[in-house]
């Protein structure tokens, strides 16, 4: 038996300017796989892609 552990990294950033303005940039880097349309996933599975 093999246990596969895979880290999913998500990095977010909030910039605070010197004048006090705050900018929430949200996710700035990630290795998370983008979610695909479920219908496209099913079609891809049927096609064997």
């Amino acid at each position: 038996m093999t246990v596969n552990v895979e880290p999913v990294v998500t990095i977010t950033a909030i910039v605070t300017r010197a004048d006090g303005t705050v900018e929430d940039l949200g996710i700035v880097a990630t290795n998370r796989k983008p979610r695909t349309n479920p219908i496209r996933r099913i079609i891809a599975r049927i096609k064997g892609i």
Partner: protein
Amino acid sequence: MPSTAAVVNNGLATITSRLIGTATNVPHHVAWGTGTGVVAVTNTTLTEPGEARTTGTATQATTTYTSDTHRVTGTIVATGTRAITECGLFTDVTAGTLYCRGLLAATINLTTGDSVALTFNIQYTSSVITTP
């Protein structure tokens, strides 16, 4: 610019070392840089390190299952005009081992006195593979 991120090979070694109790340094030192080198699991440092690292705050967080996520937050203040393109976590504030590196989706442009609060969420997911 597409973003990428990874726990690097040395980071995996840090994890297993801490699991058996030999590692003493916690990978919660936050760094940023101005390099654009691709993220690879063989990375050992940032491409172009920038400001001095800051010691962040590490906690356990919940993404899907209780405490499945290692979270580190840290804020770095720019001491000049900067174009931030990468960031990472290290096991030491000056030397140490790279644990995790990210290449940003877009450059963050800063001037003196601007600061960036970075939050690293590293979720550990598990799947069991049964071999015949």
